């Protein structure tokens, strides 16, 4: 008789739960026990925000995907280091921001050999956004490019991605007071660049 092909594996239950009510803290606790489903839930829940952080800062979808991958690989490796499991979102943001900084450093090196054609906020505006708003986004994007990373990152996290002030503080690894100060400085610089300061005057 001919050799029998090995059958495919049977379906396995990886978890039984009410997914919608599982908190980040529970997911982290379960992921720490090697629960693959919990890891996937963490990814599914937070990957869109991490992707948003990466893409809005790096302005490149391919680089953003790489950052998302790096972020979750590092996160799952270092999950035990997460002191406050409930603050998972900000912690993931911190890892993502650190990876973005690393890529910025590489981009500075590559600047001498390649011409950057990264996307602006207006380029990635949704189809329903009006032309006037697209113009504003383009202006805003130009203003953000003039900001140093120390101001740009908190502003993008807060006003583009939608992080809370606490999450911005966690992601930027600084105090809440510092975050507020950076945001205020960034606002002033953006107003100056976009002419809003003049309009107010």
């Amino acid at each position, binding site marked *: *008789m001919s050799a*029998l*092909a090995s*059958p*495919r*594996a*049977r*379906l*396995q*239950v*990886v*978890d*039984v*739960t*009410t*997914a919608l009510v599982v908190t980040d803290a529970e997911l982290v606790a379960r992921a720490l026990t090697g629960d*693959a*489903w919990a890891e*996937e839930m963490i*990814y*599914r829940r937070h*990957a*869109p925000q991490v*992707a*948003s952080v*990466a*893409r*809005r800062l790096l302005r490149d*979808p391919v680089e*953003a*995907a790489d950052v*998302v*991958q790096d972020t*979750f*690989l590092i996160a*799952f*490796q270092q999950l035990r280091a997460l002191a406050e499991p409930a603050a998972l979102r900000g912690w993931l943001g911190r890892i993502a921001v650190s990876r973005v900084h690393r890529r910025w450093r590489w981009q500075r090196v590559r600047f001498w050999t390649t011409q950057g054609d990264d996307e602006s*906020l207006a380029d*990635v*505006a*949704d189809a329903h*956004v009006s032309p006037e*708003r697209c113009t504003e*986004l383009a202006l*805003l994007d130009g203003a953000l490019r003039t900001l140093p990373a120390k101001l740009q990152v908190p502003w993008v996290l*807060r*006003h*583009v*991605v*939608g992080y809370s*002030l606490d999450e911005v503080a966690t992601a930027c690894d600084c105090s809440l007071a510092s975050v*507020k100060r950076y*945001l*205020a400085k960034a*606002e*002033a610089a953006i107003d100056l660049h976009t002419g809003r300061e003049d309009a107010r005057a």
Partner: protein
Amino acid sequence: MPVPDRAPIEAELTPALDEAELAQVWRRVRDAQAEARVAPSRRRWVVAGVAVAAAAAVVLTAWPRAPRPSGALHGDVTLTAGARLDAPVARTVALDDGSRVALAPAAQLEVLANEGDKFVTAVRRGKVGFDVRPGGPRKWIIETDLATVEVVGTAFAVERSATELAVTVDRGVVMVRGERVPGRVVRLTAGQHLEVAAPEVAVAAPPVDADRPPTTVVSPTPAQVTAQVTAPAPAPAPVPVPTPAPVPTPAPVTAPAPVLAPVTVPAPVTAQATAPDPVAPPPLVVAPPPRSIIDRADELVAQGQPARAADELTAYLAGADRDATAGLAAFLLGRLAQDQLAQPARAASAFGQVLAIGSPRAIQDEALARQARALATSGRVDAARGAAQAYLQRFSAGAHRAEMARLAAP
């Protein structure tokens, strides 16, 4: 300076990464994790050398195998045939192929077969949502007493209430088959909804023993079938709902429910409630609806009375139609006899009934394999060999082919 509050600009932008890109990244994360787990062990093997490898081989061959999980839902377990998912409260079962099964409160689902190429479950009661990973290797088959739902990759819900079966498709395409489905088969696409009414039970004789249900059944006629297919506007395509032709029946006690009408189940009228008429024909003896016999058997098994459950299933099968419900009942009887009662001859007979009925199709290979096993256990070696050979002919790629090959060998 106060920091102004404003809506995140992200809402005005296209998603940073779409679903497909996020899924691709997740696969890369998983692959990298697997690689990270393997790499250190490779290094250790290189360092340890041949001596450690030999020791490991000895350990691997001598190490006792861990017992196979029984299907209980704790940690990583295999959903073996017979495993049952009960949901006192709503819960979701995540499977390792990325699929999800969401049970509404009080829903109950039983696994009939879990193999590499198919996953067969029976929705006993309540609402169960299925989110089947598209493109997966398995065909998912959901059996109910009213219809069979077949799917490869989609999201849909099956709800079995006391009066009807409802199938709602959120994504993809499913096929709903059954005697009570209009035209026997309906193709449902995203947004469409099918309702199949349970047969109406007209007259119920009082049980002789309050603990024991009646034992024969009046089968529903096709004219008693009620089905409703609805689709959102604009509907992708109208689903044909042919009206089943009325079939004469010897004792249609109630008028057939009109198609596309709400289902009503009249309250059972007990024969003893009225004075007996000496010239009238004997009162109809009506068994519980088909679903009840399986529920009843389930309850008895749960109460530790598998023998009584088997007896009731046997009695039911004596007067039942050759439909999917009878097939399920026979399969349940065979499994009880084989796994709990140590009655292989009875099991072989029951599995033979499943095969004779030919429905549900999804469990035919399991029934044939179990029949061969039961025949072998009961000492009927030649019959077992014949059944095993039949299995290999019919299900050459079946999950039990290795075992059947051994049984079929002279």
